[in-house]
């Protein structure tokens, strides 16, 4: 295997390692929220450092590959998209930390039903499938991830309106509800990150941007 191919494999492996850590953080965050488990919240913070370290390492690797190998075609697309996927995964970690930090302030629960758990689970699924699409070169799966974002947005909207209603009804729950608004906003942002990753996967595979479909055909000169 050529040294360039080895380095490209290192890049892919690095992104998969980051994705593994991000998924573990999401899982721990879901558990910390449900169980009010402060130990798990602390684990989330510790894992975030690993993500940050990976980000620096992979950023440098991408720059080196661009500078030393002048890549083209699918190699170029992989490296260019990696430069965008890596910070998305790093941001997933930051959002998990933001949620985990609030676990102490959202109990006892004020939301009826399992909508909060569902939001976490759907977001986790989006990140997992986006990463699977990257690993498996799976364009249909990447498209499916992008479509899932609307469902998460809708669920977010529902919970948000419910929290507003609760705050109006009972001022005593305002503090918990405001923390929860930030919690659901962070979940919703993680789903956006999954969408962005899926869009990059499509760029790598198909060579054209999947972003902003409403602008398609109106290229900027």
């Amino acid at each position, binding site marked *: 295997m*050529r040294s360039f191919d080895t380095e490209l494999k290192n890049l892919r492996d690095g992104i998969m390692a980051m994705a593994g850590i991000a998924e573990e953080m999401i899982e721990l965050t879901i558990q910390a929220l449900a169980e009010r488990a402060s130990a798990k919240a602390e684990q989330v913070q510790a894992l975030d450092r690993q993500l940050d370290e990976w980000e620096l390492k992979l950023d440098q690797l991408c720059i080196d590959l661009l500078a030393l190998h002048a*890549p*083209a*075609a699918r190699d170029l697309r992989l490296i260019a998209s990696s430069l965008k996927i890596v910070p998305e995964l790093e941001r997933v970690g930051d959002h998990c930390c933001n949620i985990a930090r609030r676990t102490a302030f959202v109990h006892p629960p004020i939301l009826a039903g399992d909508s909060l758990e569902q939001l976490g689970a759907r977001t986790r699924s989006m990140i997992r499938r986006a990463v699977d699409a990257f690993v498996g070169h799976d364009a249909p799966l990447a498209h499916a991830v992008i479509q899932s974002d609307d469902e998460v947005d809708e669920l977010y909207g529902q919970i948000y309106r419910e929290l507003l209603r609760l705050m109006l009804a009972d001022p005593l729950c305002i503090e918990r509800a405001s923390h929860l608004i930030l919690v659901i906003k962070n979940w919703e942002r993680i789903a956006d990150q999954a969408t962005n990753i899926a869009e990059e996967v499509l760029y790598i595979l198909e*060579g054209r941007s999947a972003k902003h479909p409403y602008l398609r055909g109106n290229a900027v000169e």
Partner: protein
Amino acid sequence: MLNPQIPETKPVKLAVRGMNFWYGEKKILHDLSMDIHAERATAIIGPSGCGKSTFLKCFNRIHEVSSQVRVTGDMLMDGVDINRGGIDQVDLRRRVGMVFQKPNPFPRSIYENVAFGPRLFGVRDRATLDDLVEDALRKAALWDEVKDRLKDSATGMSGGQQQRLCIARALAVHPEVLLMDEPCSALDPIATSKIEELIFELKDSLTIVIVTHNMQQAARVSDYTAFFWLGKMVEMDLTERIFTTPRERMTEDYITGRFG
């Protein structure tokens, strides 16, 4: 760089249709067809022996020095066939200039090298020749370096200067097309970058066809890139597309260094 979303506005300068090239019994080029647009740089890339230099040389009929060569199909310049359209060989070579891999100045003064072409075409007046020489040397970005030593021998110049002198020599007869066969392969990076800058400026008024082994050079200087393999054209497209999203697997493998 041309935007793939915007249609080409420049007319076709050279149109090749179903062209084949034989050397004796051996068929070197197979059924080539392409459009080369005016005021654009078109790069031809491909592994050694793919026929890209042979193809380039057909545009000014250098192959005519050999009786073994046979060309079929159409090669049109402004709609007139350069092989069968009654175009005189000398006139064709004035309209279609060529720069080779290794700088090949005549062993004469800098001035005489550039004045050679115009003299051949009958320019005798000294003041007119002076103007033509200065103009060509300026266009080749060489004037400032040589204006005080025009009588010095061209062979004493650096490789990069010699190559720009060869470009000036080609420009002195006001060609419409400039063929460049690996013009930078014998040059260092600084001289290479000067030639590349020059290509960029010259294509404002000329049609440029460049054969290069250096894929990054093709990416930097050309608007269109054609990939040749075993005497066939595998793919031709906007350079931007060839280097980011080629259609053919073979092109992809070649430009990513995974060929063969």
